């Protein structure tokens, strides 16, 4: 499984990676991007099975990344997990309508991420 993590904070990327490693029982390869533009480039060049993204990022933010993934014939349908400090109920609804599959509020922990992954698995089965 290939997972792309987009967050402008290296600390956040490392922390999310650790939580995912604990939550997933299979081998995972991680790709890392510090903004949405880098993420799109990596998705075009290398692909991924799951995108985990922050919202507030310089250059190209998480909202625009979700929009562009949804608008791309090649990337449309790719599962997207948003992990953001702005993840209250209002923002969650907005992002789900935009194309996110799951929205989690920072701070996350392995248990919360595992629940998010279960939601994605369930949505894939629908």
């Amino acid at each position, binding site marked *: 499984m290939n997972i792309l993590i987009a967050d*402008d*904070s*290296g*600390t*956040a990327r*490392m*922390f999310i990676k650790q939580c995912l490693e604990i939550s997933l029982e299979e081998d995972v390869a991680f790709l890392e991007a510090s903004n949405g533009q880098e993420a799109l480039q990596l998705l075009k060049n290398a692909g991924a099975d799951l995108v985990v993204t922050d919202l*507030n990022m*310089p250059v190209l933010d998480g909202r625009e990344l979700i929009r562009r993934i949804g608008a791309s014939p090649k990337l449309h349908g790719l599962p997207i997990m948003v992990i*953001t*400090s*702005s*993840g*209250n*109920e*209002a*923002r969650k609804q*907005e992002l789900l309508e935009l194309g996110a599959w799951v929205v989690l*509020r*920072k*701070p*996350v*922990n392995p248990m919360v991420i595992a629940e998010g992954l279960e939601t994605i698995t369930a949505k894939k089965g629908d």
Partner: protein
Amino acid sequence: MDLASINVQEGMSEAIGEVLENMAFMEALPGGEENALDPDEPVFYTRLPIYKPTPSTVGLVVPQGLALSLAGALMMKECTMDEDEFEVLDVLSELTNTLAGSLLTHLLPELDSFELGLPECRVIGNWDTKREWSDCQEFLYQVDEQGFYCLWRSH
């Protein structure tokens, strides 16, 4: 809702507790006189703008020793200023970002939206509130008896 008219103390305590427990596995407790910052110790100073619903700012003032401990806990290694200053700055920025989101989630009704800016972090020789923020509220907390401030200002 106007953030300037809210008493943030309780929300700040809940938010900093949640953030440090989840990210660094550390417990933040209210600080007292005995946890006052050493004026001779350099501090990591962060701030993050809040754009909506009311222009406000959240920040942290963390003495160097505690900043290294926090970064070490998050990165699961021993951090030093010589080798890890950039990483420590990033850790403190991310803690501030997460603190701001957590604080607003505690303060605002569930369906009210908010907009955060990007955090900035730097090291300064010593902390002087009047020089940096003339009208902010300081909340003193401690981790393992090492004091640090959470800062708040709403315009």
